[in-house]
């Protein structure tokens, strides 16, 4: 037996694709790469896809007898350790199919970096996304080029670890050939964190990117405290957060019929009749005001009930302005009443008001465009419902600008420059659901199918790949698969990616932050540990910590307010409350005030003393 793992050999029946290797001294790791030295075919590279250990005497059943510990001790004393009879077995899949079945008995060795470089490193550092470390490659880094060393950290078991293996560098340029990325994984699988790392890398390369962020978590201003100070990266100039309704919105004048209908739909389901009303009442170039007024007048008129009553209103008008107003209402009533039922008109009014109250119509998307043109990452935040609608409008707008530019370039016509960009969204199944139509789905589907031509790419993350539109899923050429527990999702993943049966069985047990990357570029599935992110999510505080902190914050504040009045005599409380109200504007009732004093007593900040007449807090 040779120490150092040189006793690895091909064993058993072999095929051109899969072989078993055995060793007496070296345990095998999943996804590690090994070279089989076939005497006829030369060196063959393979990857461990299953690893097992086997001891034919453990569970100590030999010819039906169970050995007890005492006997094992005795055996050990005379020199035989039963554990040494453990053998290690690995199933290896060859990276490239061999021409003949591998020779049984061939020696197996650990490859050197140079032998796997082409397989592992698919992009230069400058042009690729450095997303993590390829798992179980630490034994091959010895002769790795220095430029690939120490370029990332991993975060595992609650501590920061230096890079041990070969980095996984995603070839961004290959997206031109193999567009779109899917990021799948259940909650807590490290999916959002993986997405964060991808976005950080995109920012480093100044790739124009739109992020739809329903969770309000894609903020990159908080640097990771675990990263050594001198290595921290500042992204504050690289990204911009916009909230729908506050910073950005829809320019009403630019809306088409369909856009408006989509927007209204987001406030509530639209009936056919309502859609029809929009088609009739909405005129191109309408402003919010003009459209709103037209609706309102029709409603007023319809509420009167009949032409006669409207004419009565005109006759009874006291001012010229009022009369004019009712005359216009009459005109609108005559034009539209028959084809626009009152209930539908009212429904649209209600939806329009709701959108307006959310501020959507008061802003535009000019800032988004400008930041994209500067190569920044633009984060669009809003509730899922708002984002669904707004993204439809936004993506349509941006995508068509890009498209027009490219088409014009092709035709040789001058057009404003608009850069290629990447669209990223979490909870993608909400934006492109399977089985029913949603406004954002059609634009996402369009981009998934022809975005490649125009340099517009998707990165779609979801915890429910099964619920994502199939046409879109089929276009995702690279998939990041984090831990997935649901059987239906594992089934979908198996169908949509090239991960093997063995790998799919491991999916429920992956550690948070470990990911299978199945990519057409790599031609196989790579097992990667996502690197430690440079920044942290604003949501990492434990909500229970927050409760504790808030409670003591609150107490602190109250104590500050009353500390000048200490000691407090119970009968004086009413006067103290008045003083506090005068000074700070905060009003307490006597009950609440006493309750809060009691709390301070409980937490030991105050002492309560009872006198014969009243209590004193000091």
């Amino acid at each position, binding site marked *: *037996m040779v120490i150092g793992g040189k006793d690895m050999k091909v064993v058993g029946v072999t095929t051109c694709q899969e072989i078993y290797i055995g060793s007496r001294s070296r345990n095998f790791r999943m996804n590690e790469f090994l070279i089989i030295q076939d005497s006829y075919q030369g060196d063959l590279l393979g990857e461990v896809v299953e690893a097992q250990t086997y001891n034919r005497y453990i569970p100590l059943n030999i*010819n039906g*007898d169970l*050995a007890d510990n005492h*006997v094992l001790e005795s055996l050990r004393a005379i020199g*035989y350790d039963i554990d040494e009879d453990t053998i290690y077995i690995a199933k290896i899949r060859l990276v490239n199919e061999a021409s003949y079945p591998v020779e049984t008995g061939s020696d197996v060795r650990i490859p050197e970096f140079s032998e796997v470089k082409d397989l592992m490193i698919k992009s230069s550092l400058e042009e690729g996304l450095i997303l993590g470390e390829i798992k179980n490659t630490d034994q091959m880094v010895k002769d790795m080029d220095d430029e690939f060393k120490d370029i990332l950290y991993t975060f595992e078991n609650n501590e920061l670890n230096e890079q041990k293996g070969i980095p996984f560098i995603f070839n961004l340029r290959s997206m031109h050939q193999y567009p779109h990325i899917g990021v799948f994984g259940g909650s807590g699988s490290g999916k959002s964190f993986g997405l964060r790392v991808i976005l950080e890398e995109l920012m480093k390369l100044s790739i124009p990117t739109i992020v739809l962020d329903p969770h309000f978590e894609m903020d990159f201003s908080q640097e990771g405290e675990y990263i050594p100070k001198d290595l921290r990266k500042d992204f504050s100039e690289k990204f911009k957060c916009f909230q729908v309704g506050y910073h950005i919105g829809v320019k009403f004048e630019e809306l088409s019929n369909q856009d408006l209908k989509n927007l209204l739909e987001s406030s509530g389901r639209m009936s056919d009749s309502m859609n029809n009303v929009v088609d009739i009442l909405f005129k191109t170039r309408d402003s919010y005001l003009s459209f709103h007024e037209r609706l309102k007048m029709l409603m007023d008129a319809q509420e009167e009930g009949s032409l006669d009553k409207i004419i009565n209103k005109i006759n009874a008008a006291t001012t010229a302005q009022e009369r004019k107003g009712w005359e216009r209402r009459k005109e609108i009533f005559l034009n539209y009443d028959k084809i626009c039922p009152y209930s539908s008109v009212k429904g649209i009014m209600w939806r329009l008001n709701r959108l307006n109250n959310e501020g959507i119509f008061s802003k535009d998307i000019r800032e988004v465009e400008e930041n994209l043109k500067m190569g920044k990452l633009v984060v669009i935040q809003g509730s899922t419902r708002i984002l669904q609608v707004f993204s439809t409008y936004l993506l349509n707008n941006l995508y068509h600008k890009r498209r027009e530019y490219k088409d014009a370039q092709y035709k040789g016509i001058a057009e404003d420059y608009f850069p290629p960009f990447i669209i990223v969204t979490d909870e993608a199944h909400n934006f492109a659901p399977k089985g029913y139509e949603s406004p954002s789905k059609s634009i996402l589907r369009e981009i998934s199918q022809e975005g490649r031509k125009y340099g517009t790419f998707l990165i779609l993350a979801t915890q429910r790949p099964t619920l994502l539109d199939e046409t879109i899923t089929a276009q995702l050429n690279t998939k990041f698969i984090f831990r997935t527990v649901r059987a239906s999702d594992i089934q979908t993943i198996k169908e949509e990616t090239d991960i093997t049966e063995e790998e799919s069985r491991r999916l429920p047990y992956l550690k948070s932050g470990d990911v299978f990357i199945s990519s057409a570029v790599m031609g196989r599935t790579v097992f990667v540990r996502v690197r430690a992110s440079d920044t942290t999510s604003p949501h990492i505080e434990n909500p229970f910590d927050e409760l504790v902190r808030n409670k003591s914050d609150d107490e602190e504040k109250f104590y500050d307010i009353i500390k000048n009045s200490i000691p407090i005599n119970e009968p004086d409380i009413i006067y103290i409350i008045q003083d506090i109200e005068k000074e700070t504007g905060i009003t307490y009732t006597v009950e609440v005030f006493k309750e809060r004093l009691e709390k301070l007593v409980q937490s030991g900040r105050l002492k309560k003393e009872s006198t014969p007449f009243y209590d004193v807090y000091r």
Partner: protein
Amino acid sequence: MERKGENMYKVSKELKDRTKELNEKLKTKYNKVFQMSKNEIISYIEENIGEIIKLESLPLEELKKYYEKGGIIGVDGSKNRIGSASPHFVELYQGLAKCTKGQDSSVYKGDFYTPLYNEEEKNILNENEVKTNSEEKILNYKLSKIEVDAALEGINKFNPSVVMMDGSLIRYNIECNNEWIKLKDECEKRKIILIGVIKEIETSIIGNSMIKNKILKDYEIFGDREMLYGLLEYKDMILIETNVGNKNEAGLSSAFIRSSFSPTAIGLDILESQRDCIIDMGRLVVSLTAENSRGVPLWLDIVDKEVKISDKMMRGILETALDREILEKLFISERDKRWL
């Protein structure tokens, strides 16, 4: 269905009756012994066979001494056969000597026998035996020889403190005398303790002694196996007196040990010249045997498992080593074709 059931019942009734008959006969035969109380038998043994000793397991420090002196070699053989009636069969033999000390500590020996080519083996038989074509002797010889050969090579390679053979030592004396003498001399010369551990006792030392002392009639043959069943306490050893039994003619001493909770006893053979060590060897055997096992030292079980020529292995070896034509023409029986 019903009729079939009836038939089955008839057959089984007959069989049952016959078996009951057998039971009665055996009961009558063994009655005498079974009627003797445990104490009576034990006293008889103590008086006429040898003393009964309580063995203690060896402490680890003692065991380590065996390790330091070279470890313990376990020796076992295995055979397997393909083919039908003579001469159309071939037997393969494998012997293994495995030392507890050191890595890569196994010596394997391999051999074959077929009546179709037995030039080498012919001289084993005397003229009389050649005429009667007593193949049995050759087959026994081959297996015993390969075990002794493995033991000899193991001794040379590992220089152990103890050689533990699987089975009775007297077997080697009978079946391959020349090689046995070599092994015996080598062990005596090097002061290596040679023992045999017998799982299935086939002697009838106690029964014969009882016949001699007129307790049993001389046509009644009782094996030690049934005499000792359930008789001894765990870790009891009967140290057979030198003048009892017939092993001392071959220069051997032996003992019976109840080495586990299982009621059957095992046998232990040792060279007469090394009789002083028999208690230590008994303790060694007890130390290496799990109390809930059938009573065989674990080390021999391990060796047994490694040496075994399984049917699958047999098939593999023959199919690759022999030409298809030879294999098919000479050795494959109709029965065997099921797997070919």
